[in-house]
Each structure stands twice: as structure tokens, then as C-alpha cells.
């Protein structure tokens, strides 16, 4: 690659990534040279500004044709754009939480790292969504993972935080190995790491032996990536890690990291396995259609395990870990159904989940922050102490439970309709979804009763930091607005991204 070729690339399409990378680098240097006792909050605000700038620059790129640079390893198609928007919004809100995060002990000297590691993690997630090659995809995945490992353990003197990081690293290592093993099969069978080339090779391949191996690689990749989604069978780490990690990190893992996981999973499934023939007598079906049942099986198991075990939880963050497992299950239902509007359904659901879950975490951080009390009883009498917080939390819980009038309801409705929209319809999966949703009412409304019908343990007023207020205003508004006028989001999606038709070009 000579200079001329380098310069000929349309580097502009990487502007959002460059902004994040540049600011992350600058912040790490600033952190080194700042006096030890100086408040690092300013770094957080800079990081927040960087995310906003990246978001704006991405909006500027929305109308661009699909472009790829660096030998097709980095591509900016509408799929990447749509999901990167979600990632950036999520990261911006998480950053606001991080700025307002003031734990009792164990954080002080690592504040600087705390901020720029979020940026590098975000960068990893963004590279993942834009990757057109298995290599970049993997590098992005690892960048996200490694940053998250450190973030989980950033409260160095806080034992649960250490435990959390340790477990996260080990499980992450296993998952990476499994994913790589699966991807190596793909490379072995096709001789390429480029997604477009893989598609081309596979769609012409009808050797049943090779198809069989490809089937094995499907399972390996799916299970390996289910670590990022926190879905069965790679879900066990989530409760421990969520509980131990600092709350903003938990919020990041449950929203941004999960979204990135779905983005990459969907891209691999559709480009690699969506192109491969199934090898059975009805060869016209791509492999993905034939493997639906496995996804459905795991989706069902994820919904059941997540929701049922959540019933027994007393720790709020642990409870939300199981709730987040359950939501991964709902999203897998959309993938398993593969309906015509799967993209719409997943994009909307991830967006709705982003707002309602981050809002809930903002309140959890506020309630459990000072006292380090994460038991549900910490919510007792919240309505008496702060009606605004209680009502906001009520909105998030209603949305998470999928009650009409909230974005969560529309998201669930879309996925639900999708299961009936395909032929044959997934009745069993739809029933499991309904049943487990009903189960989820119990634990969500458990928090409800605590807030509204229990006497408060203390009358201490709750001070609202500015960052949290902004997060709450945005998330409550979005949860309700997209619940009442879902077409605002869908119209934007349809007009800007044209149904993701350029994904395979």
C-alpha cells in the first residue's frame, strides 16, 4: 500500500471513529500530566463532547452511498450507520452516568482511565458494526472486550469489583476462543476473511461434507457470540459481573455492549450463513433458515432462564442482569423468526431497550450509590422521598414489562407480530414470549410496590446531579414519545436507511 493509495481512500467515512480515537488518546495523555489531586470530571465532559461530535458527524454521513475502504475491511453501509447511531446515543448517556458516579471508595485515582476506557470500548463497538472483514470484526470485538474487562474492575480496592472483572476476563477468554474456532472453520472452507468474498464462495458451494462443517461453525460462532449478548448458554457470567461492576459499567455492558453483540451476530449470520446453501434436498433454502430452530431453542431457553431466575433476586443490579438476559431472549426471537421486518423490529427494540434500561440504571445508581445498598428495599418509599424519581422509574419499569403506551410495548409487539408473519408461524416461541413476559411482571412490579406502597426507611432527600437529570429527561421522554408515536422512529429508519438493502452489496 503506497501513499497514493492511502490518500485515495475516502477517509471521511471514518470521521466518527477518528474523533473517538483522537479524544481517547488526548485524554490518556492529559490524565498523565494533570496534577494528582485535580478533579478529573473535566475529562468526562470532554469525552461526552467527543461522543456528541461523533454522533453529529455520523448524522452528516447518513445520506452517503455505501462505501468501503482499506480493501473492504471497513464499510459504511446503512446497517452500520443505523446501529452506530444507537451505540453513540447509548454511550453518550452512559458517559453522563459515569460523570455523576461517585462511589464511596476505590475509584478516586482511576477516574481518568474510567472515562477514556469507555471511549475505547465504544470505538471497538463501532468498528465491529462497520467491519467488512472477519479480522476487523475480531479486532473490534477484542477492543470492546478488553476495555470492558478493565472497566469492570476499575474500583481496585472494592472486592466485588475485582471479582467481577476476574470472572469477566475468564469467561470472555473462553468465548473468544470459541468464536475464533468457529471463524477459523469459515476461513478454512472459503479461503477468505472478507465477508463479501465469503458470501460469493459459499453461495456456489454445494459439497455436503463442507456444508456439514459449516453447520458446526455456525454453532461455534453463535455460542461464542452469545457471551456478548448474555444469552444461553453463555449467560452465567452476567449476574456476577453486573453486580460487582461499577453501575455505569453495568449500564454500558447491558446496553452498548449487548447492542454491539447483536449487530455483529446479525451481520455474520446474514452475510455468511444467509448465503450458504443448506445442503438438504431443498437446496434453495439458505443455511440460516434451516438453523432457525437452534436459534429459537436458545431464544426460548434464554427468556425462560432470565425471567424465572430474576424472580428470586433481591439485589437490584443482579435482578437487572437477569432482566437483561431475558431481553436478549426477546431479541433472539426476532432473529429466529427472520420476518420481513426483522431489522425494523431489532433496531427499534434495541433503541427502546437502550432508553428504558439506561434510565433505570440512572436511578439505580442514584439510589444505591452513596450507601452501597443494592437491595430492592433501598427503593422502599421512593415516592415519598422523591415523586419525580419514583414516577420516572415507574415509566421505565412499565416499558421494560411491555405495557401499552411505552416504547417497550411497541418493541415487543413488533417482535411478536414478526413471529406470526412468517410461514410457518412460530407459535411456540410466541407463547413462550408471552408467558415469560407475564412472569416478568412479578419482579418489575415488585420494585413498583416497594416504591409506592412501602414506607421509606429514611427521609433523607435525594440530591440529583446534573448528569443524571439530563439522562432521566431524555430517557423518560424517549420511552413515552416512542411508545405513543412509534412511527417517528420507523419513518426515520425507512427514509434514511432504505430497508438496509445495501447490506450485501
Amino acid at each position, binding site marked *: 500500500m503506497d501513499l497514493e493509495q492511502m490518500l485515495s481512500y475516502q477517509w471521511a467515512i471514518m470521521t466518527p471513529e477518528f474523533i473517538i480515537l483522537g479524544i481517547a488518546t488526548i485524554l490518556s495523555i492529559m490524565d498523565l500530566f494533570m496534577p494528582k489531586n485535580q478533579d478529573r470530571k473535566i475529562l468526562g465532559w470532554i469525552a461526552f463532547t467527543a461522543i456528541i461530535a461523533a454522533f453529529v458527524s455520523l448524522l452528516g454521513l447518513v445520506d452517503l452511498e455505501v462505501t468501503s475502504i482499506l480493501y473492504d475491511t471497513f464499510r459504511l453501509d446503512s446497517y452500520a450507520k443505523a446501529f452506530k447511531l444507537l451505540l453513540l446515543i447509548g454511550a453518550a448517556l452512559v458517559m453522563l452516568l459515569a460523570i455523576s458516579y461517585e462511589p464511596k471508595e476505590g475509584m478516586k485515582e482511576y477516574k481518568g482511565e474510567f472515562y477514556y476506557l469507555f471511549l475505547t470500548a465504544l470505538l471497538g463497538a463501532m468498528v465491529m458494526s462497520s467491519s467488512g472483514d472477519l479480522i476487523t470484526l475480531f479486532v473490534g470485538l477484542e477492543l470492546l472486550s478488553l476495555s470492558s474487562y478493565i472497566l469492570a474492575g476499575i474500583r481496585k480496592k472494592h472486592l466485588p469489583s475485582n*471479582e467481577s472483572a*476476574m*470472572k469477566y476476563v*475468564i*469467561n470472555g477468554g*473462553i*468465548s473468544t476462543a*470459541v468464536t475464533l474456532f468457529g471463524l477459523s472453520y469459515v476461513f478454512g472452507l472459503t479461503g477468505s476473511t472478507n465477508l463479501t468474498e465469503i458470501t460469493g464462495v459459499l453461495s456456489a458451494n454445494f459439497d455436503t461434507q463442507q*456444508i*456439514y462443517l459449516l*453447520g*458446526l461453525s455456525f*454453532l*461455534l460462532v453463535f*455460542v461464542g457470540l452469545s*457471551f456478548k449478548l448474555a444469552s*444461553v*448458554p*453463555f449467560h*452465567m*457470567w452476567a449476574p*456476577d459481573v453486573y453486580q460487582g461492576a461499577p453501575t455505569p459499567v453495568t449500564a454500558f455492558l447491558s446496553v452498548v455492549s449487548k447492542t454491539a453483540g447483536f449487530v455483529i451476530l446479525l451481520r455474520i449470520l446474514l452475510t455468511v450463513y444467509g448465503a450458504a446453501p*443448506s*445442503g*438438504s434436498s431443498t437446496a434453495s433454502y439458505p443455511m440460516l433458515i*434451516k*438453523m432457525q*430452530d*437452534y436459534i429459537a431453542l436458545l431464544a426460548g431457553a434464554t427468556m425462560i432462564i432470565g425471567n*424465572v*431466575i430474576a424472580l*428470586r433476586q433481591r439485589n437490584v443490579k443482579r435482578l437487572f442482569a437477569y432482566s437483561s438476559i431475558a431481553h436478549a431472549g426477546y431479541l433472539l426471537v426476532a432473529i429466529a423468526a427472520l*420476518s*420481513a*421486518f426483522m431489522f425494523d423490529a431489532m433496531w427499534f427494540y434495541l433503541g427502546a431497550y437502550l432508553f428504558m434500561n439506561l434510565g433505570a440504571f440512572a436511578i439505580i445508581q442514584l439510589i444505591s450509590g452513596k450507601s452501597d445498598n443494592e437491595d430492592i428495599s433501598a427503593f422502599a418509599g421512593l415516592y415519598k422521598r422523591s*415523586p*419525580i424519581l419514583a*414516577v420516572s422509574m415507574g415509566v421505565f419499569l412499565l416499558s421494560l414489562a411491555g405495557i*401499552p*403506551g411505552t416504547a417497550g410495548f*411497541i418493541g415487543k*409487539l*413488533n417482535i411478536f*407480530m414478526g413471529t406470526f*408473519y412468517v410461514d410457518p408461524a412460530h407459535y411456540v416461541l410466541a407463547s413462550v414470549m408471552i408467558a415469560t413476559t407475564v412472569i416478568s411482571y412479578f419482579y418489575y412490579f415488585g420494585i413498583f410496590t416497594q416504591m409506592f406502597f412501602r414506607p421509606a426507611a429514611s427521609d433523607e432527600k435525594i440530591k440529583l446531579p446534573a448528569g443524571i437529570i439530563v439522562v432521566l429527561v431524555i430517557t423518560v421522554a424517549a420511552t413515552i414519545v416512542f411508545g405513543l*408515536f*412509534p*412511527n417517528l422512529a*420507523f419513518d426515520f429508519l425507512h427514509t434514511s436507511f432504505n430497508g438496509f438493502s445495501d447490506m450485501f452489496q
Partner: protein
Amino acid sequence: MENAWIIPLFPLLSFLFLLLFGKKLKENSAFVGILLVGISFVYSLIVLFERFSQPTYKAEGTWLSIGDVQLTAGFEVNQLNALMLVIVSLVSLLVHTYSKGYMHDDERFHVFYAYLGLFTFAMLGLVLSPNLLQTYIFWELVGVGSFLLIGFYFYKEDAKKAAKKAFIMTRIGDVGLFIGMILLFWQVGSFEYDEIFAAVETGSISTGMITLTAILIFIGAVGKSGQFPLHTWLPDAMEGPTPVSALIHAATMVAAGVYLVAALFPLFTASETALMTVAVIGAITAIFAASIGLVQTDIKRILAYSTVSQLGYMMLALGSAGYVAGVFHLMTHAFFKALLFLAAGSVIHAVHTQNIEEMGGLWKKLRVTGPLFLVGTLAISGVPLFSGFFSKDEILISAWVHGNIALFWLAVIAAFFTAFYMFRLFFLVFTGEARKEIRNVHESPSVMTLPMVVLGVLAVVAGYVNTPWFGTFLGDWLVEGNEALGHGHVEGPAWIMIVATLVSLAGIFLAYLMYGKKSLSRDWLSSRAPVTYSVLYNKYFIDEFYELTIVNITKFFSLFLKYIEVFIVEGIIKLVVEVVQTFGKTGSRVHNGQVQMYGTVAFVGLAVLFVIFAVTGGYFG
């Protein structure tokens, strides 16, 4: 009219505002509520007057598109909606005002007003809905409002129970409504009222399906409007504060069932069977509840049974193709029953008991409430020149003309019962001597009496908008431009009016003899026919019947589920917990045990998938 959508938003604003800031405002919350609902009322009036001169206005937009299915949302102002808007917002406004006095000194004063706002919002949203789905969402929201308000005194065990019962009983009906709605959507491909009617008209739905869906939707109305056999929640709902009973359980929410049938009237008229079902259930409810009302002793319960009975009348009217009669009675009933409840609240406020046996001689002490209560009683009894007389007359004529002769006579008898039990109530409370020493009786403050005066005036004059003597203005307007709704006025034999008058006067006279002049023994019924008395007093043992059958079956079922939970679910959970704990014990020492377990689970999961893959040769089936 283009801005009619804004009407429900004011009460919603009141709800949100009071929810967040009510605690600081304390009793000033009332002013916020009254002001905002007042604005809604003024707007509603404007919309109603605009609707007199302009055609139906409808605005809709795509709310949600799933695949190629478009769900719309919007609002519609037709005659029925415009009329309902005014009724709901007016009664709500008056109840808001009245409650300022009635709920005075309650610790959760602002919460009460917030709930009232929520309910009013939902009810106004319900009447503006142009399609079934939107109606259904508000329908449920109205139920939530009612649930919260019935259970307002949640520290009272009875109130808690009544709230739960109301919620569950109406939910039973809602399941019917939901199934009916989905069936209609499946048949028509739309939730829109207009498109449903168009499909009915062109005959693209089979007659059997029309009957089925109409009856399913009617089941929803049965639950909400407290019709037989789902009526038992309504009397129990009287555990809520009295203004709530006036607003929700007399004038608005319980009328929602009637409204729903009226809104879907073209669907019902397309099926004679469905109409007949509505008429029969209505007539049975009317006489059934009236007969229970004869012997009750709790002032609010008598009014509750009377509400059930009057709602039965409305259903009878609709079932007899008397669209105008049904809607007309809905309107007059809203006024005089709200008046009766508010007056009853004023009485309870003064004497602190609800047992009419313990009252008496209050006429002299309650100089305002007494006459107003009398006005309401005269109206509901169907005494000529009062509003109830005209609307009840319309219903009887409809039933007669439609050929429901048996139901007609049932309704006449129910009218007799109504006049009797209402005047029994009146004489026991206001005349004679107090049966228990009641001290410190004083008239309610003017903030409470003023709304009653307004309703009192309406209870008299509301009837004159639709009379056989001065023109059937309301009826003509209601059906204007829509032939499916029938005629503005149905001509009937003149003797019906005379019979109705005689019957109600006879009822009053009998009540006078027994409770006013006491020349007939009060214990006449209980001594001559103890069994009948006991059956009536115990409300036909309906609750006991439910207790024996449905509740026991449910209990059995839940017991069964409990065993499943104890032995299977708990077992599994215990197993999981045991496993985790076993690993946890070793893990806590070395601090890596659990992680191994997590990795193991992932690998075992992967292995299981591989095994399935290998065994099935790749794919299921």
C-alpha cells in the same frame, strides 16, 4: 372541532402535575384539578355547539405500521362523542368541585385529585376514540382509574377487596371484548369503526360472525356496565369515596358499556340475535337489580343497585333498536344519578353512617340536600315533567314497538320497583323521627351543595331536549345522516305513557303508606314471605354462588399450581441453588469455582447443540 384531541389532555396534565407536585400543594390541589377539568368542559361545550352546525370531524394518522398492516390513531367527533364529552367533563367538573368539601382533611387529598384526573383523561380519551384498538386501550385505562379510586382507602380491608373484585370481574368481560375485537380485525382487516360498519353493510362478514363478534363485544360491555351476571362488583365498589361513586359508578365509566354498544350500533343491528341478547340481558338486569334494591339498608348500595337496574334499561333500549332512547337515558341518568350520589354523600357527610335504618327526619336539618335529593328521586322514579320520565318513556315505547312484549312488561314492573325503593329510601332518610340519636347534623358547605344544585336543575330540564310534546330535538340530531341508527323518535301508543305514570305513582304511594304514613307494616314482606325477603336481601345469593363455584374451582386450580410450584419449580430452583452453592462453597476459598461452572455451562450447552446437530444430521426434521 379540529382541536378536540386537546380535551383529554387537561385532566392528564392535572394528573401528572398533582402526582409530582401535589404533596406541596396539599388542598390547593383541588384548584388545579378543577381549573384544568373546567377548561376541558368549556372546550367540550364548544365542540358540542360546533357539531350542531358542522358535519362529523375525524382526524387520523398512522400510528404504527407492522409489515404492511397499518394501525391508526386519531379522534372523531360525531354526535354521540360530542354529547358524551360534555356529559363526562361536566360531571367530572362537578365532582371535582364537590370533592373539595367532601375529601377535606384527608391525608391523601392530592392523590385523590390526581386519580380523578387520570380517570377523567381516560374516559374522555375513550369517547374520542375512532377505532376499537384505541377504545380498548382507554377502556383498560379507565379500569385502572376505577381500581385506584375504589381502593383509595386501601387500609380498609373491604375497600381493597372491592377494588380487586371490580378489576377481576370487569377483566372477565374484557377478555370477551378482546377476542371479539381480534375476530373483527381478522375479518375486516381494520379496527376502524367506519370500516367495520362498511364491511357489515356490504356483507363481507358472514351473519354468524357478526352475531358472534357482537355478543363477544357485548360481554365486555356487560362487565363494565355491571350487567347480569357480572354485576356483583358494582355494589361492592361503593367502598370507594362517594364522589367517586357518583363520577365513575353512576355517570361515566359504567355507562361506557352502553356507550360501546351504541358506538357499534350498526354492528348490533345487523344481527337480530345479538340485539335480542342485549335486550334480554338488559331487561333481566333491570328487574333483577331493582328487586334487590327493594330491601337493602345501605344508602349507597341502594343507589348502586338502582344504577345497575337503570343501565339494564339502557341496554334494553339499545337491544330494542332504540338507539335514541338508550343514549337519551344515558344522559338523563348521568345527571340524576350523579345528583343522588352527591346528595347521598352529603347525607353521609352529615350523619356519618350509611345505614338508612339509623337515619330519619333529616328534611328539616338538611334544607338544601333534602329538596335536591327529592328532585333526583322524582326524576329516577319517572314522575312526569322530570327528565327520567321522558327517557324512560322512550325506552318503554321502543321495547313495545320492537315487539319485545314480555320484556316491556318486565320493564314496567321494574319501573314500579324503582319508584318504590327510591321513595322508601327518601322517606326513611328524610321523614319521621331519627331512629338513632344523631347529633351535630349540619348542612354541607356550599362547595358541595353548588354542584348538586347544577345537577338538580339538569335532572329536571335535561328531559326537555327530547319530548313527544315539544319536539324530539336530541333524537333527530343524534341519528342525522346515519340511517343505520334508526329513527329520531319512535311513535308508540299513548297509553304507554299513562301506564308508566300510573306505575311510578303507585310505587310512590305504596312507599308512602309503608314508610311515610306507616299505615302498612314495614315488616310486611319479611313477615309474610321470609324466604323471598331473605333471597332479596342476600341479592339472590349470587356472590355465594360465585364463591361456591368459580372461586372454588379457581382455588383448586391455584392449589394445583401451587403444588407444581412447590415440588417442581421450587425443586428445580432449589437444585440450581444447591448446585451453585456447592460450587460456591469451594469457590469462595479458591475464588475460581463459579467461573469454572460458568465455562462448563457454556461448553455443555455447545456440546448439547453439537449432539443435536450430529444426531439429526444437521437439522430438526
